[in-house]
């Protein structure tokens, strides 16, 4: 069910401020998305980067390689706005379907 929606959720998390990979997973878990596989978030972050939706700042880490911190760039904010627009539309239609069986003027 989360396919496609997870990207929007992660974009929203990143839009709230600079954050690194695993911290996003922790935020997702705290939100109640316990079932999300670690690999899913890692793959999603890689995809956001390849699609040029995030700005990256590297900072030193105790493991050796520098740690990447993500923030949304202009394109990322546009994608996030598009996600919420789609979400609002979907949410409204589903609510309509649930309450009036899909009829607007009932």
């Amino acid at each position, binding site marked *: 069910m989360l396919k496609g929606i997870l990207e929007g959720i992660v974009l929203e998390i990143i839009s709230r401020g600079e954050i*690194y*990979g*695993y*911290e996003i*997973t*922790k935020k997702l878990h705290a939100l109640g998305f316990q079932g999300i*596989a*670690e*690999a899913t978030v*890692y*793959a999603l*972050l*890689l*995809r956001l*980067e*390849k*699609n040029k939706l995030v700005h990256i700042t590297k900072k030193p*880490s*105790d*493991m*050796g*390689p*520098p*740690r*990447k911190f993500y923030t949304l760039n202009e394109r990322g904010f546009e994608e996030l706005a598009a996600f919420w627009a789609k979400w609002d539309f979907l949410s409204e239609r589903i609510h309509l379907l649930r309450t009036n069986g899909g009829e607007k003027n009932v």
Partner: protein
Amino acid sequence: MFSHEMKEKIKQFAKEQAPYYLEEAEMTYMEKLRRKTGEAKSKMMAKLAKFKSRSETAMEAQNDMILYMSDYMKDLMEQGLSEQEAFERAKEELKFRSETTKSADLQERIFAYYNNFDPADYEAIGLFYGAFVFLGLSIGALVGFIGSGGWEMFLSGGWIRTLIGAVVGVLIGVGMGLLSHAVIVLKRKK
């Protein structure tokens, strides 16, 4: 926090697994672009090959995985798992399972094949084979029969020419069937 041996294990795992994720991330990007612009696949594949060849990108993906895995392992160890247990669990969770570009391509081709599959084509091919074999058999046997001297000669050794004519006729029939098959396949390809 981790032992030197464990750090090496994590690095090795990241080196093995990160390229799969990188490939998938690029494939998704490629698919999106292809949908939007309809650009030729070969052009994108060339771009992809160029991208993959840059070892800097591959190294970056590995480093991302090392850090991600380490963070996850630290979390697991804080929950009470030993270093080795945390490593095994993280390895299992982060092991690449998704389909590769090649399998996605293959799936597309199989889907396209079944989408274009028409049983009428195969019925037509079968009928062509049957018709040509029967025609070849009849004509070959008749030519052999007449050529050997007709009924009078048939019983005194002429039957062998009739038989040869029939066999040659069948072979010609199968050959014609193959040609028809090839023509139908080529037409379908267009």
